[in-house]
């Protein structure tokens, strides 16, 4: 039954329904029931897909009273932050080279 590798986000998103769940959760955190009402699959099927997404680290859950609310993991923002941080680090050191170079050339 388990055909994906544990923690493999790529494989987890290889499924059309799971992508639909991710898109839906991008709009707002939701319970299984809320998700099932907007998707053409049953609640148990939604739960199964959520389990895969959770194992892949893409979805997190928390309790709200008696309900369990599912939401997207913030790893996406962290990954984007990391990319931009690397970009600006390199741009800044390039900037220093560029700004200090003309002064040397003119002297």
């Amino acid at each position, binding site marked *: 039954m388990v055909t994906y590798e544990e923690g493999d986000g*790529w494989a987890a998103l290889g499924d059309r329904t799971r992508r639909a769940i991710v898109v839906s959760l991008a709009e707002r955190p939701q319970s299984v029931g809320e998700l099932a009402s907007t998707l053409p699959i049953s609640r148990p099927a939604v739960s199964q897909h959520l389990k895969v997404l959770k194992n892949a680290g893409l979805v997190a859950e928390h309790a709200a009273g008696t309900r369990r609310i599912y939401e997207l993991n913030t790893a*996406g923002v962290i990954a984007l*932050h990391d990319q*931009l941080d690397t970009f600006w680090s390199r741009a800044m050191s390039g900037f220093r080279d560029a*700004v200090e170079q*003309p002064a040397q050339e003119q002297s």
Partner: protein
Amino acid sequence: MTDVDHTIVRRQIVVEAPIEQAFTVFTDRFGDFKPAEHNLMASQITETVFEPHVGGHIFDRALDGSECHWARVLAYEPPDRVVFSWDISPYWQIETDPEHTSEVEVRFIAETDQRTRLELEHRNIDRHGPGWEGVRDGVDNDAGWPLYLARYAALLAGV
């Protein structure tokens, strides 16, 4: 790491140059220090143009003459400050909805006549969304989820 605000990137650097020169090099020669492979163009880029006025753009021009406008100049106050938008989605595509763009503020502070501190703040990164709202369009793109998740995995692995 949990204390870091992931919606903001802050960098600062001190350069041995007067404030006017620091500002001019940052705007005029942006393309000279921007990592070269960092562009969205299909063909090789020949230059990066920073239009020096509010309402202008920062854009890359490619060998074939095409242009990629990836930032809007929001403030241009030489030699003290410049602010521009970051209209690049997590999928390395141009973001056309300003609501889903972040912004970069660069401040220049003269420490002496010959030394300038540059403070850069790239903020509101979360406005891009964690990339999720682009899943519909970006998920099948090699530069989309696969890139994203590879980086995600690298983060988890502590690389």
